[in-house]
């Protein structure tokens, strides 16, 4: 908007009167009182409507958020997962990020440079044009005849209008203003003059000040100037001209719009090019990483298959590059692995066959010997004492030899890995009763009483009854053998995942070193003693293997003079895991505080698997067959009590 501060000066052509530019018809205050009431009413309605709209919008936003948030979270999470799991994704994303940021930097620099150059060029042009035009104007002014007001005004205006240039396109615009603070001569008829839409106020004050303070120099400033309905960047070049003794500031304003447009176009091109380049770089990165990563993931897949036992899996080898070398060496590794495993498998098969053959070869003569021994044994009443005793020895030793052979074959079957679990739901309480019936004569021989404490009449467990029967028989016979004629207690209990059977004797007991070795093959706590008993020395080892096959635990506790406790814990269902045993490994009937100097810890706790301290005079050896070992294994025992030594518990099968 152009304003002519001096009312005496007629407005320039096309200029808009201030009144027309600032219409006050829209002001509500100007309305009449009746209208004012209706306006108040209307405004209340509008306020209410606005509130409703706000409430609705906020509800929409809330719903939108609640709908969007999970999706957003899912998106973030999946991107995060992808970032963690995919090397390719990570590489491509990183490349893209780097490319974008470097393009941003380069683009900013380039566009800045271009803008600068464009501006400098235009500035130089503007300055030289200004200089020329100012000189022209000054010359015109200097040579003017100052006669009357109208001719002066006409002269000045024509001169200035000429600056705008000929033709339809305005080359430059101007602001012409008398310098303030100078004595106003009588015949000063022109105060100011400007092109369309311009006033002196559009000129930056700093520029004006520089122009006013200087002599004849030229100054410039860049600013936004109104053109039509928008503000456009431009350069104002300021100078002084003198007319009729009055110093005027003359500012010529050059539009930078074309330069700006050029710059914008260049920037657009830069942006488009950058985006295209970034996309291409992303694609290249994707392609390259895919080329590198796909053999790696292929290798991972193949090695997983190899690990899963598909030994014939190989990588595809193409070319001679690093990836191909990786593939070749991988295949080489797989081949040698396969070879070794096949060799091992062959060896194992040979071993199995050997065991099987030996079993047959040994069993046939053994059968003959055994039958002969039995015939002799049955007829021993007719023999003289020496022959009679010989027949008895022969008979018993053949029996022993046979049980030893059977145990050996059984354990070799475990070693060969051919033992299979033949599990069926069976009542373990009934099985224990069978075992107790079976060992009845032996118990009578030792003078021990075997008792059973069971919380329920039947506990159904998925198990291989032949193996569990063998384990329990071994444990009970072992307890009887080392029970010194004292009672042997069998207790059974179940929780929701496991069943436990504990066999407790009150015999000689074991020290920690002995409990640790109790499941070792052919191990005997007291060799002198063992020679008199008939055990093969493999019974507990077989029990441990049988337990392992069931994914169960077989653990022992022992204390010198207090006897020992063997606890078998089995998962109720085949393949299940045991979290804790329903029975306590430490018997409840030992460990009364103050019972002895060596006993410093009470091991009765709420936990069925008490954790004995380092100073407890007890020892619990664990055979933990829970596979992963993650399940809570009862804590193994503790240091020896000084001065305790002697025989441990060892079974006789």
């Amino acid at each position, binding site marked *: 908007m152009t304003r002519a501060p001096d009312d005496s000066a007629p407005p320039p052509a096309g200029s808009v009167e201030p009144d027309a530019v600032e219409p006050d018809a829209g002001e509500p205050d100007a309305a009449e009182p009746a209208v004012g009431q209706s306006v108040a009413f209307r405004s209340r309605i509008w306020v209410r409507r606005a509130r409703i709209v706000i409430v609705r919008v906020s509800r929409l936003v809330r719903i939108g958020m609640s709908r969007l948030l999970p999706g957003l979270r899912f998106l973030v999470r999946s991107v995060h997962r992808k970032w963690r799991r995919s090397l390719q994704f990570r590489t491509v994303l990183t490349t893209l990020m780097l490319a974008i940021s470097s393009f941003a930097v380069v683009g900013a620099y380039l566009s800045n440079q271009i803008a600068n150059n464009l501006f400098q060029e235009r500035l130089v042009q503007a300055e030289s044009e200004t200089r020329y035009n100012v000189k022209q104007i000054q010359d015109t002014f200097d040579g003017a005849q100052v006669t009357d007001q109208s001719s002066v005004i006409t002269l000045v205006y024509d001169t200035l209008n000429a600056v705008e240039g000929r033709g339809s396109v305005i080359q430059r615009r101007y602001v012409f203003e008398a310098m303030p603070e100078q004595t106003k001569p009588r015949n000063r008829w022109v105060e100011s003059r400007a092109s369309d839409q311009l006033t002196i106020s559009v000129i930056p004050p700093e520029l004006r000040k520089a122009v006013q303070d200087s002599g004849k120099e030229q100054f410039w400033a860049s600013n936004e100037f109104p053109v039509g309905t928008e503000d456009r960047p431009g350069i104002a070049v300021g100078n002084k001209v003198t007319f009729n003794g009055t110093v005027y500031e003359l500012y010529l304003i050059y539009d930078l719009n074309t330069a700006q447009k050029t710059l914008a176009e260049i920037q657009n091109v830069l942006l488009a090019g950058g985006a295209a380049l970034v996309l291409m770089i992303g694609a290249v990165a994707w392609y390259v990483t895919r080329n590198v990563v796909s053999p790696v993931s292929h290798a991972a897949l193949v090695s997983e298959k190899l690990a899963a036992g598909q030994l014939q899996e190989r990588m595809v080898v193409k070319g001679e590059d690093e990836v191909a070398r990786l593939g070749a060496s991988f295949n080489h590794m797989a081949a040698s692995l396969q070879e070794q495993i096949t060799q091992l498998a062959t060896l194992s098969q040979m071993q199995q066959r050997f065991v099987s053959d030996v079993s*047959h070869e040994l*069993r*046939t*003569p053994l059968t003959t010997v055994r*039958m002969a021994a039995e*015939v002799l044994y049955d007829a021993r009443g007719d023999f003289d004492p020496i022959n009679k005793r010989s027949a008895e020895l022969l008979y018993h030793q053949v029996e022993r030899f046979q049980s030893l052979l059977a145990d050996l074959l059984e354990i070799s079957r475990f070693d060969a890995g051919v033992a299979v679990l033949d599990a069926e739901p069976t009542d373990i309480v009934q099985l224990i009763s069978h075992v107790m019936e079976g060992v009845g004569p032996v118990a009578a021989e030792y003078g021990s009483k075997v008792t059973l404490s069971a919380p329920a009449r039947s506990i159904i467990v998925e198990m291989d009854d032949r193996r569990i029967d063998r384990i329990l028989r071994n444990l009970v016979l072992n307890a009887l053998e080392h029970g010194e004629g004292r009672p042997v207690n069998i207790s059974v209990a179940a929780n929701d995942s496991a069943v436990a059977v504990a066999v407790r004797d009150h015999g000689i007991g074991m020290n920690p070193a002995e409990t640790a070795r109790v499941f070792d093959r052919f191990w005997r706590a007291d060799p002198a003693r063992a020679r008199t008993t008939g055990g093969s020395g493999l019974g507990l080892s077989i029990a441990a293997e049988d337990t392992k096959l069931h994914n169960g635990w077989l653990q022992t506790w022992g204390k010198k003079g207090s006897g020992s406790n063997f606890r078998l814990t089995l998962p109720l269902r085949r393949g299940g895991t045991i979290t804790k045993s329903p029975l306590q490994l430490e018997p409840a009937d030992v460990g009364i505080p103050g019972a002895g100097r060596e006993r410093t810890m009470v091991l009765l706790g709420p936990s069925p698997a008490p954790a004995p301290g380092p100073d407890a005079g007890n020892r619990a050896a664990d055979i933990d067959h829970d596979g992963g070992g993650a399940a809570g294994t009862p804590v193994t025992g503790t240091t020896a009590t000084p001065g305790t030594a002697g025989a441990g518990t060892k079974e006789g099968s």
Partner: protein
Amino acid sequence: MKARILVVDDDEALAEMIGIVLRNDGFEPVFCADGGQALDVFRSSKPDLVLLDLMLPGIDGIEVCRQIRAESDVPIVMLTAKSDTSDVVRGLESGADDYVPKPFKPAELVARVRARLRPGDQKAPETLRIADVTIDVAGHLVSRGTERISLTPLEFDLLVALARKPWQVFTRELLLEQVWGYRHAADTRLVNVHVQRLRSKIERDPEAPEVVLTVRGVGYKAGS
């Protein structure tokens, strides 16, 4: 009359020992050490029972068992050194009625022999029916309509045991006791294999049995 028992075993010492034990218990043993001659000796001696070693030179025990079974229903008891499932099952499937794993006690062997020779002659005249199968117990005849079905004595005993109490579900252990004469728990595979063999002879479709039904998790019962 003494029951004649054919002992087919290549181990002469064991065969002789078995002979001593059998003679001691009132049986009349006949020996054969070679699988190839087993069938000839069987034909010429007409034994009441065959004790057959599974591992034989020449033709192996399973093949001998198959040959004997092809022409006779005489009870066959295998002597096995291998207690591996596959061998035992293979032996039973080839037609053996029972098996004794080595090393065995003399009493055990004699008990097995006696159980198979158990006199089933004093059966009262009795006719039983399962599904569409008729059993003449005294005549040892099984027929479907007019078609006669040939069963070994053991299979016949198994079928009769089931048919006598059609309302009862027989556990494998119970069948072992009633049919095989085991007093203690023994190998239940015996029952499984023989039920399969019985079905293959007696059922119209052994895959969908109607005469001998399986009661899952318990055992077997007669069809109605």
